[in-house]
């Protein structure tokens, strides 16, 4: 798995996290534009999945642990976004912030798991 493929994902999810963090500080809930940004990050994760499926070069592709991470990370943002959007206080933004940070963390773990296998 290429390092670039992961780092782009880390940057995208951190941008989303920064946006949600800003809204938390300004005491504002999640807005539609942030959900669209979340959809972009999610789309990127799906592209990642396809790339790894098509080009399983390297040791990690053989590991079940790696695939557990690749599949698990897909659930985080859709669930967090749905859960966040139903709340109309600043806690809405906290939810999206947590979700985005978890995705960034899982992206980095992907790189580690790939190396371990």
């Amino acid at each position: 798995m290429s390092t670039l493929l992961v780092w782009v994902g880390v940057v995208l999810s951190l941008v989303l996290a920064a946006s949600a963090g800003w809204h938390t500080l300004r005491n504002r809930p999640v807005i539609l534009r942030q959900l669209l940004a979340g959809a972009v990050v999610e789309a990127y994760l799906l592209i990642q999945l396809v790339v790894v499926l098509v080009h399983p070069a390297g040791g990690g592709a053989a590991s079940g642990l790696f695939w557990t991470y690749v599949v698990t990370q897909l659930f985080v943002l859709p669930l967090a976004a749905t859960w966040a959007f139903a709340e109309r206080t600043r806690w809405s933004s906290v939810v999206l912030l947590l979700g985005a940070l978890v995705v960034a963390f899982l992206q980095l773990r992907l790189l580690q798991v790939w190396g371990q296998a």
Partner: protein
Amino acid sequence: MRPTSQGPGRALVTVYGVLALAACARGGFEVTTKFHEAPLSYSLALFAGVVYAVATFALATNRRWLAWPTVLTEMVGVLVVGTLSFVAPGLFRLHASVWSWFGVEYLLVPLVLPFLGVTWLRRSGRAAADEATRGAAPDEAAPGAGPAA
């Protein structure tokens, strides 16, 4: 009545959900790929995931009667397994569950979370009791707001 799923509870449920996902994925992976190596440890790992999943569901849907026992089970689980991984490291596979070493691999979130959960259940429950007894006997609201609330 203050629902457990609103306000700060939104964020709490999110953290519970993340741990449920992490623990179920981990336990599920271990049970399906290498169960025979250490059946007890990997069952425990999956059990932790189920406890978090039930707690997430209970807090998200305002089921206090279900949230209390699961949060307390989680508290006992992390304290017992965390302690055992220090005093009897040979007993379990050390890396088996999110509760090993009090969840240090998960930034100690598994250790802190049940205490946050209990605090939140008490606080949101007390708000409910306050509302119910407002004007009648405000002083008696607090003692009755424990686990029975």
